[in-house]
Structure formats: structure tokens, C-alpha cells
């Protein structure tokens, strides 16, 4: 049964690491839903969060193959019940007198923010779980989406569990 998994990986913060990691997925035929990367509290390491769909067997193979990459220092499947996951959305919607109020209401209810305003467009910033982001996009679609970008998931475990190199 294919389901979504989220993997956290601590990798050396050096050039080429992202190629090594994403290249492994391509080479072995694993599909990525989203991949994010950024520095950790130590400048020496970056943290990669990868979301993908697959069955348990695929998940195990991915973990083992990631673990073999020299620059990957720690890798773990994040338990969905014990993990906070977030995604950031920036979306530009058509601004018009007749729709403006509806959009503003949606922004308020979703606890999102208008970060840019022009007579013809509204740019909205929203953070939340993937399902919330999806729902918001569906909601504003009728008003006309001009442009949007999503960061992909970042995830961190609840409590004192930490992923360390």
C-alpha cells in the first residue's frame, strides 16, 4: 500500500550533496513529492526533508540507500504521529472589488497574511500542514490564481527526540 512518508536527513553542508541525494532517487526510480534543504544550528550540517509516496518496502530501500551516501550523516523516517510538519505557500491571486472581501475573509480564517497588495493582485503567505495549504489553494482558485510557489514540507519531531549527525 502506497502512503506518504517523510524522511529527515542530516547531511554535510558542502557543495554537491543535494545532487547526490536527489540523484539517488532518480537513479533508483524513486519519486519525490517534495524536497527541502537548509542549514542546521551547526554550519557544518544541512537538514534535508524529503516527502515521497511508496510502500513500506520502497521506504526501507530509500532509507538504506540514503544511509550509504558518504555525506549523509543521519537519516530517519519521521513518524507522522510524532512529527510537526509545515509547508509555506506564497500565492498571488487576482484582486477585484467584487472578490476582495471574500479573499480577505479566507485569509483571516486560514490565519494567513497578505504580504503584498496592488490594485490588480493580492500576494498571500500561508504556513501550515499540507492539507491546509491544499484546502486554501482550492478555496481561492475561483478568484484566479496568477502565480504560486510552495516550499515543500519541513518536519521536526515532537518532544526531546532529535535527529543528529
Amino acid at each position, binding site marked *: 500500500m502506497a502512503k506518504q512518508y517523510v524522511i529527515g536527513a542530516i547531511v554535510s553542508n558542502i557543495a*554537491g550533496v543535494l545532487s547526490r541525494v536527489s540523484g539517488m532517487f532518480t537513479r533508483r526510480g524513486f519519486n519525490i513529492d517534495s524536497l527541502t534543504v537548509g542549514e542546521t544550528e551547526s554550519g557544518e550540517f544541512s537538514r534535508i526533508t524529503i516527502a515521497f509516496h511508496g510502500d513500506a*518496502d520502497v521506504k526501507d*530501500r530509500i532509507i*538504506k540507500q540514503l*544511509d*550509504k551516501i558518504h555525506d549523509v550523516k543521519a537519516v530517519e523516517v519521521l513518524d507522522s504521529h510524532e512529527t510537526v510538519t509545515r509547508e509555506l505557500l506564497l500565492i498571488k491571486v487576482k484582486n477585484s472589488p467584487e472578490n476582495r472581501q471574500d479573499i480577505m475573509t479566507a485569509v483571516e480564517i486560514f490565519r494567513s497574511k497578505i504580504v503584498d497588495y496592488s490594485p490588480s493582485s493580492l500576494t498571500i503567505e500561508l504556513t501550515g500542514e499540507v492539507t491546509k495549504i491544499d484546502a486554501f489553494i482550492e478555496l481561492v482558485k475561483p478568484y484566479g490564481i496568477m502565480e504560486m510557489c510552495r516550499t515543500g514540507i519541513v518536519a521536526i519531531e515532537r518532544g526531546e527526540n532529535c535527529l543528529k549527525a
Partner: protein
Amino acid sequence: MKISGAKIVVETLIEQGCDTVFGYPGGQVINLFDELYLCRDRIKHVLTAHEQGASHAADGYARATGKVGVVIATSGPGATNLVTGIATAYLDSVPMVAITGNVPCSLLGRDTFQEVDIVGVTMPVTKHNFIVKDVNELADTLRTAFKIAKSGRPGPVLVDIPKDVQASLCEFTPEKQPVIPYPLKFAQEEDLQKAVEIINASERPYIYFGGGVISGKASEEIIALADKIDSPMGCSLMGLSAVPADNPRFLGMQGMHGHYASSVAEDESDLVIALSARFSDRATGDKKRFAKNFRIIHIDIDNAELDKNIPANLSIQGDIKDAVSRLTEMVEVKKHDTWSARIQELREDEARRIESAKSGRELDPFAIVDIVSEYENDCNIVTDVGQHQMWTAQRYPLKKPRTFLTSGGLGTMGFGMGAAIGAYEGTGKRSILFTGDGSFGMNLNELATSVTQGTPLTIVIMNNGVLGMVRQWQTLFFDKHYSNTTLDERKTDFVKLADAFGAKGTRVFTKEELRKAVQDSFAYDGTYIIDCAVDCDEFVLPMLPPGGSIDDIITEIK
């Protein structure tokens, strides 16, 4: 005292115990070759005819000795010419360090003359790779490259060094000794305990081992386990030479062109104990139909191999020598009389099938292998890829580990010449290359190298005028449409070719002529080609058709 990056490379290679490197000079490694010249009494450089030959030579050196093979090439085409050799080593887990020059750092990324992103190109076929842009990191990067290459499951590592880094100066302190590998993982006691229960309950065990037994130095341990639990053994192509061919429990290679007895024994077993093997498609056939009757215990140093191709009932990560010796202590002594009788029956059945499939021609492939092995003593047995490779793998009475060098995983035609040269450089022992007219044609330029180096090398060409392995498939599965597999029109005269390169050569048609040629070649301290006339309708049998299973085994083609 400050020394140049180029000198750091040479000094670090020497520090790491490297006595011989293989390579080819070029614009971006002139600095490095200058240091090799200055240090020529401390480290030997073998110049090949082509960088691919150098990469296979470094590979052959490593396979024959167990040490890390080193190859050096220039940027761009020099570097890309290494790729097939690096991939060959990667697929067969051979420790290798490939050093390439590159354009100066300031010119990187601008499509400079002879610039290639070789780190990007080789990422999928190396265990790891580096580009060194700071001379201060050069020595330690090279040390790490050696460490990675020889740790756990070995493999190739590439280090790309821009020309300005080779020219820059830096302090250097040699290490007292070569780097030691990363600590090995050892099997968990409770996992071995589970394995013991499964093995004790088995009535028809079968041991299937792979190349990891050779790199893990576990030959004796595996034989001891087989003896204690009264189990037959078979292996993958890469496992050959780990166990002496005359061991009474050894049934030979299994799989697509494996021995009938080992493939059938595996199928009829109730337990397959897979030791440092990876269940390649060539060893198993159709994965869906494989393993329907037996349980599997899989032990390997590389966790990623466990449950990758075939899911096992019990997967154990750990050093093979340690795991098998502990397992052997823990299991009960067994005697499986019915199973042993069945194995004996399979052996006899196999012998009958081989006899009946024989073409009866004067110089059939097994006769060639038999005659060479009759006179051979303590040589490196090397092959190229194709029918001759399978005939040699099936038939050659290999005696000890690291004496059989063949491209298993990648199946690289043209592997043999370089590997044979490298194996001699590493061992000081004669190399015997079994090749075909197709494979030999791919890298015969390396005759220039073997002649220059004075390599004691016997080249046995099974010359059937066709690309025999593909032709065999065309015969069986493509209505005898011999598309581009007939080489008769080539008119290559291998005897004249030998002469042109400064080697010796002779063409043989009969067993008697072959006997004489083999003896002559062994008495000659140089390169000797024996061009054997083989019929184009000799087939490699048995054959499990691709995607087939043991039920589809072909043991005769009439």
C-alpha cells in the same frame, strides 16, 4: 617545508602503500606526471594505450591483490575514458582510487578546453567522489578516498584535482601508515540465534555465496559451515574462486549460465543461505518465480543489499567472516543423507547433459579450457565478456581466491586486457586472458602496454567469427536473424596483429596444436596470442532464458 599539490598526491599515494599506478598523461596532469617522474624509483607508473585500459588495469591489480588500485588521467576525455572502468569496479565492489586532473579552478564551469564535470558524471558509479579546490585539503581528501574505497563493501572513489591545486604549495606531513578502514559492522547475536534455528530445522540447505566472500576473506569459514551442516554450495559469477572448484560440496556457478546441478539444487532446497551475494537477475532468473519453495537467510556487509532484489526470511547485516564463523560454532552438526543422494544424482545428471550437448568438434570450448588448465600453475585467470567468459566460468578448475578476474556486474567487453596487465603488476604472476574475437577487438590496443611492460601474458582467443553471446540469443529468441553479430568480414589476422605489436602469436585448429601453443606461451616471457578456431554454433549451456526460471532451463540446442 611547503611542497606542491602534485607532490602531495605522489607522497600520499606512497604513504598509502601504493607501489604501482596506471594512467595516461595530459594537459591538466602534467604537474602530477612531473612528480611521478621525479619519484620513479619509489612508485611505478604503467602507461597504457588508452585511459580505459588503465582503469581496468587498476581494477585488475585490485582484484588480484585486494589492495586499492590507482588510476590517473587528465581532464575531459581522459576522465570520461575512465568511466567504463570505474563503473565496472563499482558493480563488482572493487577498491579503486581514480585521480583526474581538471582545468584551473578559475576556469571551472566555463566549458574550458578539455573540461568535463567528472564528479557529476561519475556520481552514480562511484562509492563517493571529490573535487579538491584547496591544496590544504588535498592530502586528507586522498586519505579519505582510500579509506572509503577499502571500507565495508569496497568500491571506487574519484578525486578530481584542478591544475592550479596541483601547482599550489602547502605544508605536508606524511602519515606513518595507511589509513585503516571504518570499523566493520558485526552480526547481532539474536539474529544469528534466529539463523541457527532456521538452519537446524532445515533438511535440504543450500549455500549460495557471492564475491563478498573473497573481499571478506571468508572462504575457509564458508567451507566449515557447509561441512558442519552437510550442505551443498553454489555461487554467483563473482563468487568463483572463493572455494576450490574440486571441493566435493561445490556445485559451481548458478544462474543464467550456471551449472545445472547448482541451479536445480537451489530450486529443490528448503533453505538458501545467501552469503555476501546480491541475488542479481543473472543469478536468480524471474524474481516472481524464484524462491517459491525455500526460505532465505541473507547475510551481507551492505545493509542496502538486504531485501533489495529478493526479500529474505531473515536478513543480517555484518562482516561475513565473523558472522559465518560464529554461526558455524552455534549450529548443530547435521547429516542429510537423502539430500546428499539427490545432489549426487544431480551431478550425474549434469555430467550426462554436458556429454550429450557436446558438439563433438575438435576444438570445442571446454577442450580449450581443459588444455590450458592442464598446464597452468598459479596464474591469474582473466576473462573478457561473452560466451568465452561463461565457458571459462563453468569449466576452469579455480583453486584459490583472487585468481579469477571477470567483469560480472557490468559485463564489460574489453575488460580483460587491462585487467590481465594490472593483475600481473600486482602479483608478479603470469596472466592468462580468455577472450573472444569480439571482446578482444574492443581494447586490443593494450597489446602495446603488455609488450612494453614485458607482461607474461597468454591470450587465448576463442575465435568464432561472431559475437557469440548475442548470436546465441538471436538463434534462440530472434528467428536466427543474425543482425550485426557476424565478424567474418573483418579479416583481422590476430597472428599478424601480434607481430605488429611486437608480441608472439599462433593460430590453432586442433587440440595438439593448442597443447603446443600453450606450452610455448608459458615458456615465453612476454605476450603470446593463441588464436583458437572455434565454431560459431557452439552454445553456452545450460541456459535459463532471461526472465525465466528453473522450469525453463535449456540444456541442449540441436
